[in-house]
């Protein structure tokens, strides 16, 4: 599992992904942690198959007892099917996940972890002195979906938005935006169902000061590529499956 520190300040952001040992027939996914002095938040913890390499990688940054919070943007298995294992490993943790999906996500196993339902209009996660904003991103692609914005690190974790299907050797940041577009086009056209939802989200996030846009699959966008991505997504017709 590759680990990349993407923000270092009073707290840290680390991106995990490109697991070389994952089975070939499951999609590669990006996981993130936000680490403060005594706490650790795991964003998009990943599927069951990824649990062992992911937990082992996190242990380079935080002890088990300090993994206190988990976040799932939506209910898909590549996002949170490892929950049943985290549930047995963590003794005092909370899962922040969409209220709408609570009954569904609990199928993965959630007995000791406290499920903190996120209302439709979002909320704030407080991790010691760090305040993370939970931004609504409904229908992108899941009907009830959220992103995480850190105004200090200027990172927006965007779940499926900005994702691309790529191999385990792909770089972690977009290097040439124009050529990367083709890796994202079909994914966004097919996975995102609503142009209206897309426009509402773009209007919302254009007001945020973003240095890194961090999706759940594929490469992250940095600096000017963030604006390039928003412009490209704005112009893209989505919902092409029908």
């Amino acid at each position, binding site marked *: 599992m590759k680990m990349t520190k993407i923000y270092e300040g009073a707290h840290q952001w680390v991106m995990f992904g490109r697991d070389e040992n994952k089975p070939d027939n499951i999609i590669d996914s990006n996981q993130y942690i936000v680490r403060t002095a005594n706490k650790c938040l795991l964003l998009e913890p990943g599927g069951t198959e990824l*649990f*062992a*390499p992911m*937990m*082992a*990688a996190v*242990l*380079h*940054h*935080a*002890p*088990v*007892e300090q993994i206190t919070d988990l976040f799932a943007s939506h209910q898909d298995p590549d996002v949170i099917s490892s929950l*049943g*294992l985290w549930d*047995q*490993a*963590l*003794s005092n943790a909370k899962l922040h996940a969409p209220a709408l999906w609570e009954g569904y996500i609990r199928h993965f*196993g959630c007995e000791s972890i406290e499920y903190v339902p996120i209302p439709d209009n979002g909320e704030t996660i407080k991790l010691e002195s760090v305040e993370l904003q939970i931004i609504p991103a409904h229908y992108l692609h899941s009907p009830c979906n959220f992103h995480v914005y850190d105004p200090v690190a200027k990172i927006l974790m965007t779940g499926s938005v900005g994702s691309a299907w790529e191999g385990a050797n792909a770089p972690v940041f977009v290097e040439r935006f124009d050529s990367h577009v083709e890796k994202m086009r079909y994914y966004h056209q097919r996975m995102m169902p609503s142009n209206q939802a897309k426009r509402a989200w773009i209007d919302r996030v254009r007001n945020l000061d973003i240095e890194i846009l961090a999706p759940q699959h594929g490469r992250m966008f940095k600096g000017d590529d963030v604006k390039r991505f928003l412009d490209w997504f704005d112009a893209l017709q989505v919902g092409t499956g029908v």
Partner: protein
Amino acid sequence: MNSQTKSQFIAVASITSELSAVMVVAKEISLAAANAKAIAFRAGDKAKGFQPITDFINELAKETIELVTNINVYALLLYRLTVNEYRRTAAYNRFEQVAKLAVGAEYADSMQEPIAQAKTIMQDCQRQFKRDVTQLLGQLEAVMHHARAARVIAANSRIEASQAGEYLQSLQAVAESVDKAAHTIHDNVQRCRIALSIYRNS
């Protein structure tokens, strides 16, 4: 899922299937008892010896139905325990994998406590499963006992039927159906016992 876990799931699931067949047969015995009672009543003095037997048959059928109902509830609990044991074992194995992958990580040692806890819970589940299987086998033995009793009653029924003159054939048919049902119950329960016996407490 390894083959041991698969056979455990199959063994537990097969109990419910075998016992639902036993339930059907026990209900048939109950019906045969009611039928025998009516025939014996019509036969009057010719089937005097048969009349008390019909009550035995009915009682036996009722007790078998009750026993099987209880065992089915127990079998469902055993199934849940099997699912739980599977989850706990899977978690323990993953945690062990984490420990191997985390060698050299700054906080690798912090995984030791979750591993120890997972191991304890997994072993508790395994012990509980063996205890429950032993208990279930005891309940199945009680059903076997009823099946054996039904066969003795069937044999007595045949003797009494032979004294019943023109009712001989009808009462012999009752005896036959009780005997057949007893055999079926015996065979089905025996299959349950064989499937479970490898998991019992030694």
